[in-house]
């Protein structure tokens, strides 16, 4: 076999390297033709093939008896018992959102929704994890505005409530924002699970949804590249979304799945028709014959290559029995959508692509999907330093709190989430005003909770601690509301995998998250990797975002986030592993310190479980996990017109500085019937201190002398400071 060296321009255009080219020729036993170049470019991209991450993702703890699916499909599924199941997943749309924030973010929401309803699950919750640069950075305000209105317009229109989220701001995201969207869907009794495995010779391949246009061509390989100064000019490849169409697709697809009319179904996501068809064929071990000229087009000048790579939104591919075609078409027609036959399943094992009668390629899909490269890239774990805490010599509590609550990191995100419909569906029990999002499961009337994780300042402090926290912290947020954490999804946002230090962070993150998941018995059932989040060699903070889902038997009496009544006991409950001034130090522009950089993960996991028991005790009326600026700041956020009298500070508070340090981990409880609550704590061998009690219109601290805080002003500052 005489293989010519490819010209380097072609390699560059298709974003493949020489070794990969050699491998392609070996697998094909010939040189690729033009169409095949395009196919390999898309399917062997980092984005589609996970070539740098796959061997590490295998380390994730991902199975327990509840897990029905945790690999190989569009999204994972767990069984909740009582004939209810859920599917959820998180995905990034970072690069498109930086280029065109409104459409980029909107189509991110659309894409993750399709991954859920393709499985046959009805989407009932959305959440988003956003990282922006400093608000003063170039264009940052308009990026935030664009992203938020994109998410809001799409999510609101399709009618899925956005129940929680997180927004982090730091200069490392100035030129590479993160937009991660999470969707969760439910199967009620009798709802079938749909898979993407093509099957059955002579079955038809049916295309439904929007017509194919020029949008997003080469999107997958673009997402596998770092930004350079010219990214602005890569604009024409951004996809445009239509939430109205998506809503029709959700209803019609769920209807055909529910009526058992489809053999397999798959959304057209990254790399569009190429990845959907090749993956369906490869998973099913059957061939497909596709007539590209039958694909409905919005633009008649599209070439076969364009059609294969277009990332036009709101499109699905189905496999069905020819006998059921009419019934399928009727359903789609009812929803004012077209369903077009574009090919059939064959008994061979090859995908055959035709254009106006000519065979463009006949190729075994395994070559593109299963045999995609796998790299164990060199990695080097960086060692964190900065041991020992530093002094702030805080003088005024009021002023410090004002600084915190108006800072980029400390202020409320209400301006953002007020634009999201948080209650459509009529099942929302806790919305974005609260620590976790909660919806009621219609069938069993149980409460399903969702919390997002990953606090980038901890990642900047120490990768392993930060990654453990990205599972522990959201799990704790669920536990303090009496939920049992069940399973995890993740979205791993990192810089270039070709940089050994970045890869070191990646590996450390995966290992640490997996450890936390194993200890909590919360398997990772789905996820997404986004590499090349860097600009001009400047990496973002490693950001392994997570979504943790939990369940609680009763939808009623979930502990409140706020202090609603007077004369309730205020308790600080803790298990201290390490102490950091992280968030406050960054606020005052210093680097991050901690007293140690180790965690006894067994004990933390154990404590989180105990906290869940305590939180369901009848004496608990309110609870909140202590966040980044320590318990005083968290307590201020909990106040309403009712404030707090702190009678006694814990022994470990030795200076004013100590009031603003974060100790992993602490929880605040608002309690009636204090005696039985304390008994419950003793029984569970949990450390605590009673801080004081709630009182209307005042916030007082006895700290050697009596100090009064203007907490209403603080609340006002917190609410109003993030306002674009």
């Amino acid at each position, binding site marked *: 076999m005489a293989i010519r060296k490819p010209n380097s321009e072609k390699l560059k255009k298709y974003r493949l390297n020489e070794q990969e080219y050699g491998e392609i020729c070996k697998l094909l036993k010939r040189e690729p033709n033009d169409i095949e170049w395009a196919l390999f470019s898309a399917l062997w991209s980092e984005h589609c093939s996970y070539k740098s991450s796959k061997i590490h993702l295998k380390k994730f703890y991902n199975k327990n008896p509840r897990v029905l699916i945790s690999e190989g499909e569009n999204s994972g599924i767990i069984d909740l018992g009582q004939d209810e199941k859920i599917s959820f997943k998180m995905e990034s749309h970072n690069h498109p959102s930086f280029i*065109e924030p409104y*459409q980029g973010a909107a189509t991110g929401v659309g894409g993750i929704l399709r991954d859920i309803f393709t499985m046959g699950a009805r989407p009932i919750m959305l959440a988003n994890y956003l990282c922006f640069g400093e608000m003063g950075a170039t264009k940052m305000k308009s990026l935030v505005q664009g992203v938020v209105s994109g998410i809001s317009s799409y999510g609101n229109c399709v009618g899925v409530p956005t129940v929680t989220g997180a927004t982090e701001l730091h200069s490392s995201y100035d030129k590479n924002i993160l937009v991660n969207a999470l969707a969760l869907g439910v199967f009620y009794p009798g709802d079938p699970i749909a898979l993407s495995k093509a099957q059955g010779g002579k079955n038809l391949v049916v295309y439904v949804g*929007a017509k194919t*246009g*020029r*949008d997003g061509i080469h999107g997958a390989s673009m997402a596998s590249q770092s930004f350079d100064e010219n990214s602005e000019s890569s*604009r*024409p490849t*951004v996809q*445009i979304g*239509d939430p*109205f*169409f998506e809503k029709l697709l959700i209803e019609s697809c769920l209807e055909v799945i529910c009526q058992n009319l489809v053999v397999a179904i798959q959304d057209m996501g990254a790399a569009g028709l190429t990845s959907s068809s090749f993956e369906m064929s490869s998973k099913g071990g059957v061939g497909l014959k596709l007539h590209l000229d039958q694909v409905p087009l*919005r*633009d008649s000048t599209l070439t076969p290559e364009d059609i294969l790579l277009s990332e*036009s*939104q709101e499109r699905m591919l189905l496999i069905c029995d020819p006998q059921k075609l009419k019934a399928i078409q009727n359903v789609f027609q009812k929803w*004012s959508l077209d369903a077009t036959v574009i090919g059939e399943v064959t008994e061979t094992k090859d995908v055959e692509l035709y254009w106006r009668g000519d065979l463009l390629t006949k190729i075994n899909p395994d070559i593109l999907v299963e045999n995609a490269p796998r790299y164990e890239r060199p990695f080097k774990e960086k060692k964190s330093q900065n041991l020992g805490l530093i002094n702030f010599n805080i003088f005024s509590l009021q002023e410090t709190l004002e600084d915190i609550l108006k800072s980029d990191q400390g202020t409320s995100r209400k301006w953002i989430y007020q634009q999201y419909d948080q209650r459509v569906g009529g099942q929302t029990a806790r919305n974005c005003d609260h620590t976790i999002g909660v919806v009621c499961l219609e069938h069993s009337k149980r409460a399903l909770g969702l919390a997002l994780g990953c606090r980038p300042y901890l990642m900047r402090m120490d990768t392993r601690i930060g990654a453990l926290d990205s599972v522990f912290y959201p799990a704790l947020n669920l536990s303090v509301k009496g939920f049992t954490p069940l399973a995890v999804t993740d979205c791993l946002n990192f810089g270039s995998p070709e940089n050994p230090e970045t890869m070191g962070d990646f590996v450390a993150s995966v290992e640490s998250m997996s450890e936390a998941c194993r200890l909590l018995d919360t398997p990772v059932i789905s996820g997404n990797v986004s590499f090349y989040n860097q600009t001009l060699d400047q990496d973002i903070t490693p950001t392994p975002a997570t979504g943790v889902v939990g369940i609680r038997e009763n939808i009623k009496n979930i502990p409140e986030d706020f202090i609603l009544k007077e004369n309730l006991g205020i308790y600080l409950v803790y298990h201290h592993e390490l102490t950091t001034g992280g968030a406050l130090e960054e606020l005052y522009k210093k680097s991050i310190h901690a007293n140690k950089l180790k965690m006894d993960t067994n004990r933390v996991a154990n404590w989180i479980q105990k906290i869940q028991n305590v939180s369901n005790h009848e004496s608990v009326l309110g609870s909140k996990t202590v966040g980044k600026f320590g318990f005083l700041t968290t307590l201020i956020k909990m106040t309403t017109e009712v404030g707090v009298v702190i009678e006694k500070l814990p022994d470990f508070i030795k200076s004013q500085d100590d009031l603003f340090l974060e100790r992993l981990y602490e929880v605040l409880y608002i309690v009636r019937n204090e005696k039985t609550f304390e008994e419950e704590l003793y029984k569970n061998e949990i450390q605590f201190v009673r801080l004081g009690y709630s009182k209307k219109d005042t916030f007082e601290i006895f700290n050697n002398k009596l100090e009064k805080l203007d907490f209403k002003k603080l609340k006002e500052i917190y609410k109003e400071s993030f306002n674009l």
Partner: protein
Amino acid sequence: MKIGLKILPRKEVLDSQGRTVQNSLNENGFRVSHCTIGKYIVLDVDAQNINEAREKIQKMAEFILYNPLIETYEIENQTYG
């Protein structure tokens, strides 16, 4: 000087609004073979002549009023109204 600026979705781009309105019109007995929906913006700017006004408006269009990724624009050649 008041000048009108038309902003329309680019031809290759999905115009779901236009498509939906077109369907709805046809369902109600009208006959429309195509419908595109965009924006019409009238701007009042200080200028000596039409060309100066149009230049100013072009700058604004390029700066913020239209999104080159999905739209095209056209500045009218006469004053509005």
